[in-house]
């Protein structure tokens, strides 16, 4: 295959000035909100060991970018931030009994299978709240996500909450076999409700059990779903899951964001490490998932430090898409000078920069096409000729 001169590896993109500005504004808005909730931002390496972080990640193996280091170890470009932060928290930061609030804004890498133009590198902004197993932690993470998105300017969006523990308990109680549970869960994961119904009807089950499985697909809506799910919960684990959701709903209500939230008891995520409450966020004008999160109480045990944890991540590229064109209202001035008046021009530029204004300082001889060059500025000041008045 011939590589063209300007070509980049599949799914990799440049970020040009206008998009960069918009992206930075959104990132900073979300970061500000997250910081006011007391979360500390951290960075982790772009490369990790496949054996540890690669294996702990929920991203499919064929989506990982892998390479070898000089000793022959397999490395991965981090496919998400949750696994590296779990590694970091387990090794350094986490002390038993002290909840830890960490946040990140970082690029992650996932090789795309279909339609090469889809981004294989994209930025996520998110938080991880480690060491607190109460529903207050889940409510905080979900509410913080909503507040941060609102701060970034997003209005028309919705968060769907489910509970994977509930789904698993229901399936296991009826099917009694991990393999069979997996088969049925796969239909939900693939969003194939037709297949789910057909499969349930093909199983040798009592009509009560069949109805319990079929009813799962209809258990969605507002807070009333909790009460509905409660009447159908038969096992202890199901009941505990529903109780958790009831508490969560009450806590979210305290944050005043229940109007942005819906429940769906059949929600199953593409991230396999979730163990309890999980959620996804969708926005108008973007056909794909904007962000997601949930409780992952077993991930830290993979780094020999068992601890409950929850978190969310939002894709910055999709947030940008949801919000549309950037509104860039800061103006940039250009001062064009001739060599004999450089000192004067620089003094003027320095003065304006001190005030926080954006100034480009340009020697007139360096410009080939004056009209095209000046067209890209909001204001142009000419400091030209021997001495005289500035022209505008």
């Amino acid at each position, binding site marked *: 295959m011939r590589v063209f001169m300007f070509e980049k590896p599949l799914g990799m993109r440049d970020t040009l000035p206008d998009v960069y500005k918009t992206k930075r504004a959104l990132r900073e808005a979300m970061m500000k909100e997250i910081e006011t909730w007391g979360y500390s931002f951290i960075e982790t390496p772009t490369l990790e060991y496949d054996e540890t972080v690669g294996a702990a990640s929920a991203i499919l193996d064929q989506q990982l970018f892998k390479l070898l280091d000089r000793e022959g170890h397999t490395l991965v470009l981090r496919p998400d931030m949750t696994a590296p932060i779990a590694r970091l928290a387990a090794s350094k930061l986490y002390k038993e009994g002290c909840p830890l609030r960490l946040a990140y804004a970082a690029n992650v890498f996932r090789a795309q299978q279909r339609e090469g133009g889809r981004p294989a590198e994209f930025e996520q902004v998110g938080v991880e709240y480690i060491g607190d197993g109460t529903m207050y932690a889940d409510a905080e993470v979900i509410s913080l996500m909503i507040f941060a998105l609102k701060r970034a300017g997003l209005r028309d969006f919705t968060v769907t909450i489910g509970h994977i523990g509930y789904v698993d308990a229901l399936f296991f109680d009826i099917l009694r076999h991990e393999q069979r549970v997996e088969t049925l869960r796969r239909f939900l994961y693939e969003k194939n*409700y037709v297949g789910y119904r057909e499969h349930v009807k093909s199983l040798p089950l009592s009509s009560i059990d069949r109805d319990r499985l079929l009813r799962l697909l209809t258990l969605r809506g507002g807070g009333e779903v909790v009460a509905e799910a409660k009447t159908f919960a038969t096992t202890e684990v199901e009941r505990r899951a529903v109780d958790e959701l009831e508490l969560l709903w009450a806590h979210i209500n305290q944050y005043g964001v229940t109007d942005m939230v*819906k429940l769906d008891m059949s929600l199953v995520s593409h991230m396999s490490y979730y163990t309890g409450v999980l959620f996804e966020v*969708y926005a*108008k004008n973007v*056909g794909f*998932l904007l962000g997601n999160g949930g409780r992952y109480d077993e991930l830290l045990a993979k780094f020999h430090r068992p601890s409950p944890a929850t978190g969310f991540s939002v894709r910055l590229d999709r947030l940008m898409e949801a919000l549309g064109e950037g509104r860039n209202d800061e103006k940039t001035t250009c001062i064009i000078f001739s060599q004999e008046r450089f000192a004067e021009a620089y003094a003027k530029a320095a003065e304006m920069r001190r005030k926080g204004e954006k100034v480009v300082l340009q020697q007139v001889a360096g410009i080939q096409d004056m009209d095209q060059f000046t067209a890209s500025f909001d204001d142009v000041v000419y400091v030209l000729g021997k001495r005289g008045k500035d022209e505008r």
Partner: protein
Amino acid sequence: MMLTVAMPKGRIFTEALVLLKQAGYEIPDDLEHSRKLMIDVPNEQLRFILAKPMDVVTYVEHGVADVGIAGKDVLLEEERDVYEMLDLRISPCYLAVAGLPNTRVHPIAPRVATKYPNIASTYFREQGEQVEIIKLNGSVELAPLIGLAERIVDIVSTGRTLKENGLVELERIVDVTSRFIVNPVSYRMQDRAIEQMVDRLTYAIEKAGECNEN
């Protein structure tokens, strides 16, 4: 809020239209004969877009159409991230392996021609057979006749095309009907409108099922 519906042009279109009408949607008659690709039906709050059957899932996955009607064959081939909500039970047919009678697969270079490379590849891999998949865009029956491939994987509805070309069906892969599909974001953001559409279609499917039984 207007709902955008992606409809497949061709074979499924007429049957899908009948079903929508049975579901109580008032759809103008010229929809079927119009050459326009985008048609608004304001009194039903619907916008129809007419696409190639293979492309309906793409429009729905990207969210430019909220919902759509697509064959299960297309869903299996394309593996797109969309909700498969309802089996509309229209346009029934199946995917099958076919070839000339009394022929063997080439022992050195086994070849299969198909419009469905993904389905065909998965099927033969499941059987543990190594075959070369050749992608064609239509008239797949030609391939065994002219010696491009010994086997084809294609849609069979009546079996007439196979028969007229002297081919026989060898293995049945999977049954196919049309499905009602929904974009994952629309499923959340437009849940009321979509739920209503699902209910009305469910009712129409059941009614159509009763008619067939009688």
